């Protein structure tokens, strides 16, 4: 399935939802994965989640009654998109390495 390039935020949100996770947990996981570089602000994360639910890439799970937190999880469709994106990113890195590899001084 070709959906074009994902934004960085979308990619990381999908990647953090291989197991069920709630909003703030997603933010923390993305921050951890990117070593503090990507900090998803609440409006940005909420917008990304809503749009991914609409596209059927992730699923909104039942609200946890005690904490009133809502968890999300990736769908099969979302997983396919993520894998496609990973292939695309690998291609970018491969070509980058190939073309630039010899020229990087260091």
């Amino acid at each position: 399935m070709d959906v074009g390039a994902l934004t960085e935020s979308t990619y990381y949100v999908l990647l953090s939802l291989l197991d069920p996770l709630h909003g703030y947990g997603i933010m923390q996981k993305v921050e951890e994965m990117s070593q503090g570089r990507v900090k998803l602000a609440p409006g940005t994360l909420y917008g990304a989640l809503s749009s991914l639910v609409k596209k059927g890439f992730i699923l909104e799970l039942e609200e946890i009654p005690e904490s009133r937190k809502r968890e999300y999880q990736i769908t099969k469709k979302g997983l396919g998109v993520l894998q496609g994106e990973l292939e695309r990113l690998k291609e970018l890195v491969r070509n980058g390495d190939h073309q630039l590899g010899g020229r990087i001084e260091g």
Partner: protein
Amino acid sequence: MKKRMWKIFPVSKYREEEKWINKMEQEGWHLVNVGFLHYDFVRGEPNTYQYAMELMTGDREEREKYFSFLKEYGVECADTFTEWAYLRREKQDEDFILFSDNESMIQYKKRVFRNLMSVLLLLLFNVVFMIFNFIDLYKREETLTGFFIFRMVLHGLSALAIFAVAPEIWRLHKEMKEMKA
């Protein structure tokens, strides 16, 4: 201790409004309630909170859902007025921002842009209505009544808001263009 302040911010002056609310906070006044032309504050420790305003979308249910999502981030809604939410969180070293990447920021600016555009359309419609009223009066060769003048002054005053709204629309347009570049 409570304090009510009366203040006029045109819809397009939301950036100034947000700054003013945060200035009040620095002076130890926490915003708790927003109404028509007035703001209620309670006295407290200065710089306890950071405030941010957001133009809402969706119906009541969706907004409640968003607010409960925000709670996970430690963000609460102090109050809402018309389409705007007055959000706050306990003060941190970092700025209180709601959108952290270009894409979502552009989306949000688009939302505000559309909202202000519909306000501008209403204001322009108001001017057209005013002009027709004058043409009608001229055709019927009636004399000016006090009521007519009163009505036209009201319309004229609201037409002035065009000069507040139009520059902000232009500014948003420019910002979105720069961000897309």
